[in-house]
């Protein structure tokens, strides 16, 4: 224990003497959160539209009115020929062109089918799908109104409305993607700073040969590793609080669940992430190399395989298997549950177990590799 405290004290002294690194550890994640939080958004709004109205009737104008009344579509241009529309699409000035054919109002009145053409730029498939969905809803609305009018005209009072969907949106009623992304970002950023900081702090000692001086002493590997990790646990907890505060102030993400459970989850996560950092430090020799390996090994899987952006259930089975080894996979899911859904221990215990197992795995590997005799 005395030896453990010696390492701990030394580590704090070195951190205090290097405020730049400490600042980077705490403020870079905060900065990245604000940056990513604003830039990364799946919300599809203000889709730029050009309209070709060959009908020029009150009905065709009423269609356009209902289209541009909401924030999803912006009218960029009113055009007079299909070629003009193709040009606008080619240059990316608009994402879609709506063409209302001549005779639109007449056909509607006669009860004939009308083809309403929408040209959609699908180079961004996600936005395109959403755009088509919005148009689908629009045509449904028009059809209902037309049928209702026709039936009334025929003297029938339609008592039945058919199926009326009543979605009740839980956990994120505004459907804001920030609420979904912020917990994921927390996982990503914390993973990055935890793994990089620990691997660097150990490799630095190897590079400066002070590690050798420690290795000839009677200290045990676990005293050394614990003493080096504990300060970073505290720093990462500060980073976590900082990022949560920012999430609240900038993106309105409130923590609905228990702080205690959130703390426990974070500690388990740090246990695993820091263990991975130590493991990386045992296989690298220079700080530069450790930094590169740490960034690659923490950030890439955290973005791609953690379910932070891409849902895991949509991945090929083999890739889904790999995600079981990804620390943020468990952390992101657990904190999303706690922050957005007020999840209880019962709801997220599989994630906590996953973190515990990965943590044990990485730490055992790391301690095993920190043999004192090469």
């Amino acid at each position, binding site marked *: 224990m*005395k030896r453990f405290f*010696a390492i701990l004290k030394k580590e704090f002294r*070195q951190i205090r003497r290097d405020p730049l690194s400490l600042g980077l550890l705490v403020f870079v994640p905060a900065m990245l959160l604000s940056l990513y939080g604003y830039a990364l958004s799946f919300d599809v709004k203000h889709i730029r539209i050009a309209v070709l109205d060959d009908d020029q009737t009150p009905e065709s104008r009423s269609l356009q009115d209902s289209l541009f009344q909401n924030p999803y579509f912006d009218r960029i241009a009113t055009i007079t020929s299909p070629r003009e529309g193709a040009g606008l699409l080619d240059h990316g000035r608009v994402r879609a062109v709506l063409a209302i054919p001549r005779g639109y109002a007449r056909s509607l009145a006669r009860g004939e089918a009308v083809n309403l053409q929408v040209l959609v730029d699908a180079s961004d498939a996600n936005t395109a799908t959403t755009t088509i969905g919005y148009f689908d809803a629009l045509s449904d609305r028009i059809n209902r109104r037309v049928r209702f009018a026709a039936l009334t005209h025929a003297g029938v009072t339609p008592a039945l409305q058919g199926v009326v969907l009543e979605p009740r949106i839980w956990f994120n009623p505004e459907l804001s993607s920030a609420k979904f992304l912020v917990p994921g970002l927390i996982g990503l950023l914390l993973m990055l700073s935890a793994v990089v900081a620990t691997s660097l702090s150990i490799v630095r000692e190897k590079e400066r*040969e002070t590690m*050798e*001086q420690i290795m*000839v002493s*009677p200290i045990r590997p676990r005293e050394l590793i614990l003493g080096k990790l504990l300060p970073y646990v505290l720093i990462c907890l500060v980073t976590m609080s900082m990022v949560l505060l920012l999430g609240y102030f900038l993106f309105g993400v409130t923590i609905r669940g228990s702080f205690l459970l959130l703390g426990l989850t974070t500690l388990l996560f740090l246990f695993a992430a820091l263990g991975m950092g130590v493991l990386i430090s045992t296989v690298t020799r220079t700080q530069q190399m450790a930094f590169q390996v740490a960034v690659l090994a923490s950030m890439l899987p955290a973005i791609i395989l953690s379910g932070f952006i891409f849902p895991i259930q949509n991945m090929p089975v083999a890739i889904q298997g790999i995600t079981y080894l990804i620390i943020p996979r468990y952390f992101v899911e657990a904190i999303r549950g706690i922050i957005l859904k007020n999840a209880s221990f019962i709801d997220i215990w599989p994630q906590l177990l996953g973190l515990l197992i990965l943590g044990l795995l990485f730490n055992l590997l790391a301690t095993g590799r920190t043999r*004192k005799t090469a």
Partner: protein
Amino acid sequence: MSRDPSEPVIETRDLSKVFGRFTAVDRVSFSIRRGEIFGFLGPNGAGKSTTIRMLCGLLSSSSGTAQVNGHDINREPELIREAIGYMSQKFSLYRDLTVAENIAFFGGIYGLQGARLRDRTATVMTLAGLTGQENHLTGTLSGALQQRLALGCAILHEPPILFLDEPTSGVDPVSRREFWDLIRGLSARGITILVTTHFMDEAEFCDRLGFINAGRLIALDTPARIKTTTGSATLEAAFIKLAT
């Protein structure tokens, strides 16, 4: 520890270290008595550091046996670590910590605390000539002072055995001379010292020398006897005769 003073404190028999196809240390056997200053002399890459690193438990041996303070290097490395001090040419101190903080740290990892730590700190500060500079950052000290502090940190826990791996490289001649005075003082107090060097003038300060070349021990005797048996005026001449 009441031991026969003539009993060897360090003893190796056919100690070897092979890295892949390269034999760094080739069947080296020697023994060092209590209080002796034993010098390992040889060119860079001859196997001096590799031998020391095996004796310190930093490196495993490939074959042969070695005992340090009565403990086998492969079976009881932890008991050996309690009994040795180690200082290498890199003066492995924390340059971003103060003198006092370095001493507190190295004292700490050897389990020193309280009155004993205070007592030893004062002794080491005097020995290293650093009294009054406790709060200076180690990185701002001169090479010679860093070297003395590194030595001080290596003997904080009063080890009976001290390994010095090229302790004087990168230090000016006057400071080297003063450093050797320190070493002789430690030896006079019964500390056994194994030191490596490639400076022939320093070799004269050793009680006994081992000449090592290409991993092999090519001579093992007192400086005077090595010179007489080879009929050389200087150790350097003797070494060249033996090595070729």
